[in-house]
């Protein structure tokens, strides 16, 4: 009897597992302005300024009008590579495709600072890129982990 149940339970469990795997990334719709508020009020972004559409284009090769909103904060100091970027896109596929832009950004920074700015390099090497649903999160900063936490909390489905 137990055997008969188990014969069905395990395949069912597998199905549930696959389903969860496929839907694990689903996110809730958030107000990007509200989230921006949350970041700018945080003391870890105190020395950072807002990046413009132009800068987004220049450093990431991303057009702001292709997005449904973004947060871009960058360090106001020249020799500092700290950056925070959160994109809200129309769908999951395009969020995923911007991952490459972020990787390219990191590889340019890495090439520039390799053998030259070791502290910046550490920040670059520990940078976080994460795609969740139609959101992309990018952070290069000693506080990257903290920012990521904020991001995950914000988009998490209740």
């Amino acid at each position, binding site marked *: 009897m137990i055997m008969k149940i188990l014969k069905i339970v395990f395949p069912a469990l*597998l199905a549930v597992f696959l389903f969860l795997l496929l839907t694990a990334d689903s996110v809730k719709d958030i107000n990007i302005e509200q989230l921006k508020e949350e970041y700018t009020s945080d003391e870890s972004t105190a020395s950072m300024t807002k990046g413009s559409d132009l800068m987004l284009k220049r450093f990431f090769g991303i057009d702001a009008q292709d997005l449904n909103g973004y947060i871009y904060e960058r360090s106001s100091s020249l020799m500092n590579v700290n950056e925070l970027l959160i994109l809200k896109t129309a769908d999951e596929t395009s969020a995923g495709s911007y991952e490459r832009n972020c990787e390219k950004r990191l590889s340019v920074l890495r090439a520039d600072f390799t053998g030259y700015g070791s502290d910046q390099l550490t920040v670059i090497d520990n940078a976080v890129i994460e795609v969740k649903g139609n959101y992309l999160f990018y952070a290069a900063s000693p506080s990257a982990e903290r920012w990521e936490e904020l991001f995950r909390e914000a988009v998490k489905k209740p």
Partner: protein
Amino acid sequence: MGGIIPGGREEAMIFSSLIFVFLFLPVVLIVYHLVPARVKNLIILLASLIFYAWGEPVYVILILIMTAFCYVMGLDIEKHKGTPSAGYSLIEAVVVNLLILGFFKYYGFLIDTINGIFRLSIPIKTLAQPLGLSFYTFRAIAYLVDVFRGKTKAEHNIINFGTFLAMFPQLLCGPIDRYEDLSSQLTDRTVTRAGFGYGVELFLIGLAKKVLLADSIGKLYSAFVSMANESLSAVMAWLGILAFTFQIYYDFSGYSDMAIGLAGMFGFKIKKNFDYPYISKSITEFWRRWHISLGSWFRDYVYIPLGGNRVSAGRHILNILIVWALTGLWHGAAWTYIFWGLFYGLMLIFEKYVLMRIPLHPPAAVKMIYTMFFVMIGWVFFQSSSLPAAFSTLSVMFGGSHLFFGTDAAYYLRTYLLPLIICVLAATPWPYRLFRKLESRKPPAAAAAVGVLTIISTAFMVYDTYQTFFYVKF
């Protein structure tokens, strides 16, 4: 192709990584040999789960459910042996295994097709492939079929079953060993000094094959890959394919050696997976020597159930083609792999129905050259990103290029001459025979030789990580 692990991620704890050799392995060995006999399998199982979880812990859940499922199905099939119910259970178990394998391996391809047919745009979510999935589902299917056929009893102890299915030495890259070979060892085995020493020897030789031979000659292959076909000379193309021929052999057989050696350190005896395939005198022989556990799996669980060779010639040919298309597909969801498999199917049919009937007995050297020629043609398909790319490489190799011998070939032939010679020699049994002699005459000298090889292997493993980070650009 950095390695043979399908869908290999960089975080995966492969055997030739510093973290595996110098941290994971010593800890597991010490714990294993300290604990009492009855918990040894549990230790192996736990170590295997940690090993598997490294980098992608979520799939531990998958492997746990799969293991429990196959365990239950094995018991169920055994219990109802001889009744139709056993057959239904077997079908259920095999189908679930194949569905899981198919889901992860062909998921992207599947969604693409569905989108194409129904004009949908279901976004493809990139799922990391669970490592070793092709190996452990095949091991599980063999077990279930064997229980059904009465070839072996079902395993009643779930820890032992888990150890069999998920044991870390064979988890990622095989060999696809059979439960019938391991069942008695699971309950009763001892690690003898000789057995342990033999395991160490195999592991270290395998490690050297992987990091010293495969990875080094792999550099020549990457140089070939980075050249455009138009600028390639014919000799360079042959050189590139030759480099791949050695890279895949030393990569894969080195990994198998390491797996068998590791298993030996824990008292398991596992059959060899490679037997000097590159000295074969025919394609048929080649496949008796290359990835032996996979070949015998397809023989026992596909070819023979289809009727094997005890059928009409037409049916036999069809059987061979089915088996080899599937063998190709097993290596990856791409047309190049299927083509590669079918190419071997055709070669085997040709040998069986044509070559065998010609009363011609050329010298062994000619047969070996014939075999290696077609094996290399096979690798052209295997390593190509697409079928057109494969044919374009072939055309360069066979005179389609304006250049027969260029400075590229001259340079790489000169700088890789010694590695190539070593690769050729190490693919034959002679150096190993010589080494056996040394072992039995001067044990310290033989041990010192392996020791030096190991230190050099370590240097190569360390350099590998140095290289990944080090990239100066001013």
